[in-house]
């Protein structure tokens, strides 16, 4: 308000002081001091002072006719009290078109102009106030968005750090589990190998063969007979079925009995592999019999547990890493100087233009969809640069 008063006062003084010199601004007043002669502002020529604004162009720069249309390159100053002053080309003076809101350009024309400066001024001030309000509102919103952005940004940063911590922990865990799994695996292998070594060692093996032989030799006569085979041996596929005599004979190498030596070379191998036949009431190969060794059992389940644990940790690690890279990607996008555009992430906006619907998802992609539903991608990363200064409230 104070500013307006000053401006109005300035205008007033211009009007009073240079009443005779039409069409000049206060700052040019000094060129038009009433003297005997007038020096064209470009210095090109001196003319009698009466020739200023006498409706004849004397100066090449048009400076002798600021208030008439006489000079092709002249300009006329609209004072526009109550509004903004401005220059118009001299050719618009008295041309029947109202250019200055204070009507000063049509001082000698048939066109009747209405002084609209006050209205214009009021409107402009109202306009300006409106705009200022809008701007303030925009700034407020912007601040809010910046804060929101900062908040989100921080949150995301924290999240990232947390995730990275988790990832590190998992890394450690992962290594630990890998180690554990390796150890368990090794232990089991060693146990197995030890057992194998025992089994395969002549003594242990023999003892085992002998014990199986004795197991089969129900009557302990030192040889296995068809009956005994039929009583104790069965096919793996069909345990319930009793072997036929022929089958038993076949197992006995074509004879009706078998001593320990022959057993060792023939039936033992069949039983041991456990592929087709087995001793009734037992599971799997004869080695299974071996696995029932409690030591091996313990080693095996320990290794399995270790593997399962490792897998869980690996999955967790992968998930965390993906989250980290996703977050990192988002954090590297330019969201404006103050990250005021961060809020637009994950939002989409639609605009209908004639038959097309445009969908803009900032930082993601832009598509155009027509009435028939055909969708065309117009590109990704819809926003690449930002006006650095402002973001309007709308």
């Amino acid at each position, binding site marked *: 308000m104070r500013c307006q008063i000053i401006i109005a006062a300035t205008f007033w003084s211009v009007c009073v002081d240079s009443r005779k010199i039409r069409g000049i601004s206060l700052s040019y007043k000094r060129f038009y001091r009433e003297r005997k002669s007038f020096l064209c502002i470009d210095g090109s020529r001196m003319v009698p002072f009466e020739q200023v604004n*006498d*409706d004849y162009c004397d100066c090449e720069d048009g400076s002798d006719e600021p208030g008439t*249309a006489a000079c*092709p390159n002249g300009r006329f100053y609209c004072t526009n009290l109550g509004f903004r002053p401005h220059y118009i*080309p001299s*050719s*618009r003076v008295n041309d*029947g*078109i109202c250019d200055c809101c204070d009507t000063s350009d049509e001082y000698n024309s048939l066109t009747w102009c209405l002084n609209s400066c006050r209205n214009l001024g009021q409107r402009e001030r109202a306009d300006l106030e409106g705009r200022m309000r809008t701007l303030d509102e925009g700034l407020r919103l912007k601040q809010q968005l910046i804060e929101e952005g900062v908040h989100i940004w921080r949150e995301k940063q924290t999240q990232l750090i947390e995730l990275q911590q988790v990832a590190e922990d998992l890394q450690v865990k992962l290594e630990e589990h890998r180690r554990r799994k390796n150890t368990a695996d090794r232990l089991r292998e060693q146990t197995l190998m030890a057992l194998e070594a025992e089994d395969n060692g002549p003594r242990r093996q023999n003892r085992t063969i002998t014990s199986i032989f004795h197991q089969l030799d129900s009557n302990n006569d030192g040889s296995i007979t068809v009956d005994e085979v039929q009583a104790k041996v069965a096919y793996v596929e069909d345990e319930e079925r009793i072997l036929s005599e022929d089958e038993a004979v076949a197992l006995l190498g074509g004879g009706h009995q078998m001593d320990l030596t022959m057993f060792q070379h023939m039936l033992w191998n069949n039983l041991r592999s456990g592929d087709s036949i087995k001793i009734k009431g037992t599971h799997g190969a004869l080695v299974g019999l071996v696995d029932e060794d409690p030591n091996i059992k313990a080693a095996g389940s320990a290794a399995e547990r270790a593997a399962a644990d490792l897998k869980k940790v690996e999955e967790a690690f992968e998930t965390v890493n993906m989250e980290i890279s996703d977050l990192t990607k988002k954090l590297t996008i330019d969201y404006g100087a103050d990250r005021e555009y961060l809020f637009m992430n994950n939002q989409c906006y639609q605009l209908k233009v004639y038959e097309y619907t445009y969908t803009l998802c900032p930082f993601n992609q832009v598509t155009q969809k027509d009435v028939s539903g055909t969708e065309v991608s117009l590109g990704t990363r819809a926003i690449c640069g930002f006006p650095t200064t402002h973001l309007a409230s709308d």
Partner: protein
Amino acid sequence: MVPALVLWLAVCLSGTWAVDRGNFKTCDQSAFCKRQRALKPGQSPYRALLETMELTNTRLTLQLINDNNKVRLLLELYRLQGNMTRVKINELKPLKPRFEVPDVLIQEPPTEPLSLLSKDENGVVLSLGAESQRVIVSAQPFRLDIMEGHEVLMSLNSRGLLAFEHLRMRKDTQADPEAEKKEEADPANQAEEQTAKDDEEKVEDGMWEETFKSHSDSKPNGPSSISLDFSLPGVEHVYGIPEHADTLKLKTTDGGEPYRLYNLDVFQYELYNPMALYGAVPVMLAHNAQRTTGIFWLNAAETWVDISSNTAGKTVFGKMLDYVQGSSETPQTDVRWISESGIIDVFIMLGPTPYDVFSQYASLTGTQAFPPLAGLAYHQCRWNYNDQEDVQSVDVGFDQHDIPYDFIWLDIEHTDGKRYFTWDPHKFATPKDMLEALMVKKRKMVAIVDPHIKVDSNYKIHNEIRSRGFYVKNKDGGDYEGWCWPGNAGYPDFTNPEMRSWWASMFAYDQYEGSMKNLYTWNDMNEPSVFNGPEVTMHKDAMHGAWENRDVHNLYGFYVQMATAEGLIQRSGGVERPFVLTRAFFAGSQRYGAVWTGDNAAEWEHLKISIPMCLSLGLVGISLCGADVGGFFKTPSSELLVRWYQTGAYQPFFRAHAHLDTPRREPWLFGPENTALIREVVRQRYALLPYWYQLFHHAYHTGHPVMRPLWVEYPQDSATFAMDNQFLIGRDLLVHPVTEEGARGVTAYLPGKGEVWFDVHTFQKHNGAQNLYIPVTMSSIPVFQRGGSIIPRKVRVRRSSSCMENDPYTLYVALGPQRAAEGELYIDDSHTFNFEKKEFIHRRLSFANNILSSINLAPDAQYSTQSWIERILILGASKPSKVTLKTSDGQERQVEFEFDSSMSVLTLRKPGMNAGADWTVALQ
């Protein structure tokens, strides 16, 4: 505008990319032209039957008989007021009436008595009145010779090419009248029979039917063409017969195509050839250093003109012999006119000066319409200004860049679906607001109204025309329909006066919704353009009332503009002058407004051709001519655009226009330097508007062209006869536009031995009768003012011409070798017909004996102006000791002055008298 799209389609369909001659007929492809042209010069079969001669006070009639077929013709000979002879030849008893062109002549030309000088069995001699002019009618073979003293001015049928295809019954139907009915009932079948019967000959002959590119012409009347030859002894230069994209001086057509006159919408026309274009004025001027004459062939059908140059009376062999022997016998030009139908009705204008011929022709067909002053100002056009906002922003652009303009134009896209007289409801929702906004700026608008009418039962204009039966009919009696901008369209029969008057009534403010008094009209596509018709125009067997399109074709555009101009006059109650631009035209079109040279291209050659094209139109009465500044098709370089503005600013109709597909080219879009160059030249145009206006006022009264070839003013200077790279505006300004890319200089010819010319920019004086080399920069526009002339300018250039109405004048007095000069000043209200009620100021300005005076040329006229004389420049002056102004009230006062001795320019400061007053300024 152009049927670009459809031609493009047509081109695609025909499988070739050449946009070209192939779409348009050669003489060979036009059956009657081929038949006629096959006829070679020789003894005419026609004989005048002198015993049938009747001589009344106003005319001579005489029968002619063709000794080959015994068909008789009737010759009518009139001596017309103003040194003209009219020759009419028709069949004595035609099977049915033959078409005679109505509405082109402004009145039945007044006659003067013919008197018989002598008569014997060989012929008769008639006196043409003064100057020992006679016409000799020779009986066998029939010929006419127009003589002055012992000199033959012009001979008709001297080469025996009078050929009149009489109307006849179809041969195969003559014997059997029953068959005729059958034929009518089933023409297709009949045609087939014919073809089968007599295949070769019929196809070649094309007498009863003709096919061109899948279009067939049913020709129900059979052959009807006419032809006549004219010999012009002593003539080497002939001009006129627009519209062709060719040199000013017409070329001989021996061994090539004849010049064709058939209004066609030619897509991307070629330069320097005799193909038909949008308009046709069948008027030819013949000129030599002694005399100018003219031939006006009043026929609206398709017409071909052959021109050959011979030595009088010599065979080709003789000519060769002459050449070898270096014979100096008089040269001769022979001209032959061939038209498809109608009658021979020819006006021989006997000059003898160019201005006499202009006046003679104007007495027949009228003079140039006097445009409103704004029509001579700058026009900003584009296909299209998209919407009201666009119009407003262009308007603001002109003000921001301080470039004046008077008219902004809207092309077809402003309508609601190409329904003329309507507005697009979204883009131009409130046309009155738009027009109002322009009116506040004292500016105007032109909106296009084409003659093709969308066939749409929801369209008022269509419904009315259909229900009133105003459409052109097809050969079967239904409404003729063709394809144009709106899709399927009907074509109103503008030859029908009732139709025209109804059309005119559609321009009333209460009929044409959204129109206001600052809205004017543009008639495009009025050849008429029919995208799917033969040669992109109407079928020749389409019916306009009783007449075929064949008969009236070249009149269509003439009538469209006539009806439109009448509409604009009527809407203002007869007060306001109309402004209507047309693309198609005919003899007489000058009475209705402006013409432009159609769809040119942004090429240097097209810039060059704009000069001869407008000069040719000016010679045949159409002064308000212009070419699209910048070129319609393609995109001009900024250099070409600037040069085109510089050229267009010195041509009568000054409008920038551009094709829809080209980038925007408003004057400020090419950088500040080019903007400044264009601003400067538009301002030069505005400053000169008083001179242009005065010239158009003069053209309205006299028919004299505004833009003139040099030979018109210097008829004896043979150096000027073929000149068409420079021209005169009126008598006093000579313009040699720069039309070469990268030009560093031009050589202008300054005519007139003993005369002087002043460079209008520097005031430097040059002698006449010399080729002057002028170095040029981008800002140069070589323009010279003739010493001995006075040109008024309004140098206070404003936003539009009407803003300058009350502004003062600066007089440019260019002293001639005798230290004298003359000029005129014409002032009226600039837009109404009130000047016809003697409301104007017309003054002669003359400088002699060191006294410049303003004398009233029209003491009975009354008009007052606020304009005054602010400055007088006297070029070629010497320094006076004092200058005294004396006004009519007897007061005297000294006038301040300045003298520039380097250029001998005396400037009188602010003499201040009213422009309408009597005054004298004396230099002492």
